[in-house]
């Protein structure tokens, strides 16, 4: 990252293609009960990757208590 962000001697654009976790939850600043309820509903209806998403949400919530 350091090299890519500061390299400009050749005046060429730089691309950093970062493979990131597509299931990292976007949690509102205060996770409202309605938001959590809706996520649960989506799980009940067959949301793919629900186990993984649920685990991350649970761990994030647990650590804020």
């Amino acid at each position, binding site marked *: *990252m*350091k*090299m*890519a*962000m*500061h*390299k*400009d001697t*050749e*005046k*060429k*654009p*730089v*691309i*950093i*293609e*970062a*493979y*990131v*976790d*597509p*299931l*990292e*939850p*976007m949690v*509102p*600043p*205060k996770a409202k009960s309605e*938001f959590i*309820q*809706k*996520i*649960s*509903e*989506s799980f009940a*209806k*067959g*949301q*793919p*990757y629900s186990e*993984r998403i649920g*685990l*991350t949400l649970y*761990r*994030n919530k647990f*650590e*804020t208590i």
Partner: protein
Amino acid sequence: MAEYDNLSCADIVAEALIDWKVDTIFGLPGDGINGFMEALRTRKDKIKFVLVRHEESAAFMASAYAKYTGKLGACLATSGPGAIHLLNGLYDAKLDGTPVVAITGRTYSDLMGSGYQQDVDQLQLFSDVSVYNNIINKPEQAEMVVDMACRAALSQRGVSHFTMPIDVQEKILEGKYSKHKVPGHTSDKLINFDIMPSSQKTLKDAAEILNAGKKIVIFIGQGALNARNEVLAIAEKLNAPIVKSLLGKAVVEDDNPYNIGILGILGTEPATDAMNEADTLLMVGTSFPYIDYLPKPGQARGIQIDIKPEKIGLRYPVEVGLLGDSRIILSALIPLLDSHNKGQKENKNSNNSFLLDKQQAMKEWTSKLETFRNRSNNSGEITYNNKLIKPQTIAAAVSEELEDNAIISIDSGTSTFWAARHINVRNGMKFSVSGTLASMACGLPYAIAAQMIYPERQCVAFVGDGGFMMLMAEFATAVQYNLPIKVIILKNNTIGMIRWEQMGYLGNPEYGVEFTPIDLAGLLKIVVETVIL
């Protein structure tokens, strides 16, 4: 009008734009606008034409030019499809109150409305996006139209559009005016925006409310970008935390002790709490649209400063509206405020417990974000060549490498979320995005425009793969113009924001949000430096 003798209509338009200090036009030519292209070719020492790969990018670049410089942005396109492609970028400018002039060509004047090739009624097409919208029929009309278009865009902070039939562009000024026309009746003088509030009484009314407040929140947007010191002076005097809109992120540095972060779904918990508890709200240069994050009407006494009168009281009921430039109004307001700090000329409402509480909460919030960010991804089954990283980690890493005067352009999607929370803007940096339109694809064109304007500064595009792929051909534009922009793509092969909206808003399983992965870096490596994390 002697200055325009023997000039073509296109020449006059170019000269008039130069008079308005337009120095760069982003665009893509076509046969409908080629008469004007010749006028630009013969004036390339005075006005630069930047060739893009898609007209939507040209409009985004014009919008970014205006946002990053405060000056009038300009773009052009040919008739029909070219003009249509401009629209999304122009709506970005419209919704964020950004001055842009858009110039389009039209088919031959004696074939308009006949269904001829690329014959689109662009006056109707641009009627919603523009504050000024006209067609130039003859050279004798041209200067007036440009003057009105530029003045309207600047004064109303919006989009002006005018179109010219291809044959009209080449017509030479004959000086044959209608009997009521007076040549030179419009002016090209810039407007003085140093508007002061209508009266001292209005300022005193505002000061009275602020002096009486015990839980005051200062909420800042892009309209306060020139007023950092004044905002901080008021925050210090009133013991008031500062909450930012996304477009106002660069007003005050993120590590300033008065900053408690951005408001909204991508914002911070202390910002949300402060709004829920505030008894007084001072809004400065913001038209933040998510009103459910603002105090409930009646909860807080409202004061709003804005350059547009119609924005005052739009999102929250205010008792006092102050019209004009934020820096000037805040400067006039400061002497009227009593200090809420003990030991100085004390206000009876002196109490810094609200501020201290929010500052402590901000420290805890920052720590919590760091914890989430640093947690490993070892619980998941999905990996990409064992290179899966949390998006927050990338945002934080980018933040660490930002130079003191970096310009950060972000995109719309989950990348917005991570940038808002994990990229720390420092004093002297610039930061922008398609704020109110929240359009995908803006990040790359914005960064290109930024690097064009500021060749010596570090210009960064922080984008998702979804937004990047929409206008990824512009990477070739960066190569063509030798622009060392840094493009950081969060690659998750997903329209990520929509996944969470489908689940979290509607309670439905995701559908139609996953892309087949493509090797973006590999695709572009012929012309770029490539680093894969």
